[in-house]
């Protein structure tokens, strides 16, 4: 199992009801899973817990056979090798496209880093965009750069938080197709969150309805 979640429970606030309550999930290596549900169903929270951005109240999360949360252990986000594309992309505005993508791979030598950035830009079909800045990109381009940045370190898991919510209808079809192709091409285990079941079908994902 690439991801194993057992009896996961979480509340943002003690006074509120659990937003994630006894949640279980198993994802095989290379599988694409879609968590579908209305807002407030806790689907994004599951992603944040998996990434290590929130600390669970109880339950257990294992990634590639290693426990990252639970059993009195908590592995910080930066040590989980989980990639996440944020809903608003969160491209660092003060860094160029090249530096954004290279952000997570600065342990590589300069030449290998450069080659890796080039390879990823090719993957997302934005060759030659190295020197641009995020505000010079369209919404669709920003998303592809965010994807490239997330894939650069070779994460064990790819998490996509509402990847199509900021795109207009026409662009959406195109991006869904491209994204699907990229994910299949590199075979990364993927969990995407969406409020729209159509997204899950389009991405040929195993659907999990949350409520």
């Amino acid at each position, binding site marked *: 199992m690439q991801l194993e979640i057992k009896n996961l429970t979480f509340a943002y606030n003690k006074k509120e009801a659990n937003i994630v309550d006894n949640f279980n999930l198993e994802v095989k290596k290379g599988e694409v899973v879609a968590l579908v549900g209305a807002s407030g169903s806790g689907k994004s929270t599951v992603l944040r817990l998996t990434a*290590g951005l929130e600390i669970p109240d109880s339950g257990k999360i294992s990634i590639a056979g290693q426990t990252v949360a639970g059993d009195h252990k908590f592995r910080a986000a930066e040590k989980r090798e989980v990639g996440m594309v*944020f809903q608003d992309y969160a491209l660092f505005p003060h860094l160029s496209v090249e530096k954004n993508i290279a952000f997570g791979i600065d342990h590589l030598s300069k030449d290998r880093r450069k080659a890796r950035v080039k390879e990823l830009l090719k993957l997302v079909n934005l060759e030659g965009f190295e020197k641009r800045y995020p505000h010079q990109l369209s919404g669709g381009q920003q998303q592809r750069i965010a994807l490239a*940045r997330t894939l650069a370190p070779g994460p064990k898991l790819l998490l996509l938080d509402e990847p199509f919510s900021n795109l207009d209808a026409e662009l959406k079809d195109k991006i869904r197709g491209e994204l699907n192709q990229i994910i299949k091409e590199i075979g990364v285990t993927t969990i995407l969150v969406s409020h729209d079941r159509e997204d899950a079908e389009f991405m040929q994902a195993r659907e999990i309805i949350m409520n």
Partner: protein
Amino acid sequence: MQLLKKLKKASPGWFLLTVGIIILLLIPNLNIIINLFGEAGENWEHVRNYLLVNYFQNSLILVLATGLLAAFLGAGLAWVIAAYNFPGRDFLSWGLILPLAIPPYIGAYVYQGMFSYTGPLQTFLRNKFQLRLSQQYFDFMNIRGAIFIYTIFLFPYVFLMTRAFLSKQSASLLESSRLLGKSDNTIFFKIILPLSRGAVVAGSSLVMMEVLNDYGVVKYFGISTFTTAIFKSWFGMGDLPTSVRLAVMAMLVIFVVLFIEKLLRGGRKYSYSTSNIRPVSRRKLEGSRKVLAQLFTYGVFFFGFLLPTVQLLYWSFLSRGGGLMETLHFAFTSFLTGGGAAVLILTGAVIIATTARMSSNFVSNLLARITILGYSIPGAVIAVGVLLFMLQLDGVLSFLQTGFGIEANVVLSSTLVMLIFAYAVRFMGIAFNSVNSGYEKIGESYFEASRTLGKGVTETFFKIDLPMLKPALMSGFLLVFIEIMKELPLTMILRPFNFDTLATKAFEYASDEMIYRAADLSLVLIFFSAAAIYLITHHRRRKNNAVRN
């Protein structure tokens, strides 16, 4: 797991550093309260029996009257600027902040000088019209005069907060009221004022705190308040226990103010049922209403900035640059002290704000509250607390030095270290607020994105947070810098021997009736403050435009 959740993502290093700073900020204030239970000073009996009522009365009258007047003036101006278009409006939208560049104690001696028997107004009336009016018409040096001075130079706090609030209000609110047949006056009193009550009260309570903090105006006008009393008992009588007791009393007045604020703000919080907020479109004014709006806004600008500045320029011209070298010297000292202290304070504020951001709501609210506490406590009170703390530290130091046989004789009291520490206690809140609102604007996703890309808290801070915080750091620095440049009570009490800033020297000259000498120093001070205000407001505006484009 639960404890971890409470601290959330804060790393232990950041947290410990923050706790250290917070303890340092708290000690001086706690010190005062602890010392209250010590033995009373020899003058306390006298102060309590004959003077205390007077201090309370004067302080309360000044605080409440100024708070009320500044609230109306600031809110009215904010409404005119936010809702109408008329020639000069764009300039006035920041020009009306400029009175803040003139410290009230400078405004006080300028107005007193203008209205005095030998001042330009009476001289003019005497020479041109042979008018010799009774001096009581021109008497500025009383409570009414002080209220006028405070109001005209401090109202921008209310103006700024209310304007910021109004500019975020939905246009449809205003337009639907207009369509419902309400006149603009009705809209102002029935819709705008109740809605912006929180902002007006918040601005007004800032004004009240500034009034309580002030030493210069009341000292110059000979009005006894807590601040002047603390000075007198410490400087005049060398009676620290009595100053401590007075400081506690002054804190009581602060709690009254804070309580009133809470009461007036009420538990109500209005929020919109829609997220689609279109900013208010300003209505163009014509005819008599245009003239009225201009008279009102330009009038306030005239009395709050233009007139005193021109008067100072004239006095400075009369002195013909006599004290140029001296002015440069004090400008340099002020600049260095203010700049250095502001950098230190900002560093502390960034550490606290970064930890607060990574902590749970409870912890971060607590941190915010403690940090802002110092700004609501009058400078003279903080000075007493810091002095007590430094004397204790000196005791420890001398014990250590004799214990280890070192003959260094290091002392902290009456050094620049003590003064800068006191600035930090008082102004950390301002810097913290700037950094914090910077963090709020940035949001969390950049931080989180960096974490998921394998960077720890500290690396993320240096690579992502710090560069993105730059505008907030800039405005935080400028705000703290001008506050320190203008600061009087702390500096007067805690400065090292023979150490003067533009503020203390200008005040000294003015008190000695050497108005021409004071004018040069005041002008430099006002120039720096005005430049900082210009930079802050125009930087913000540029950024807003960039976002809109």
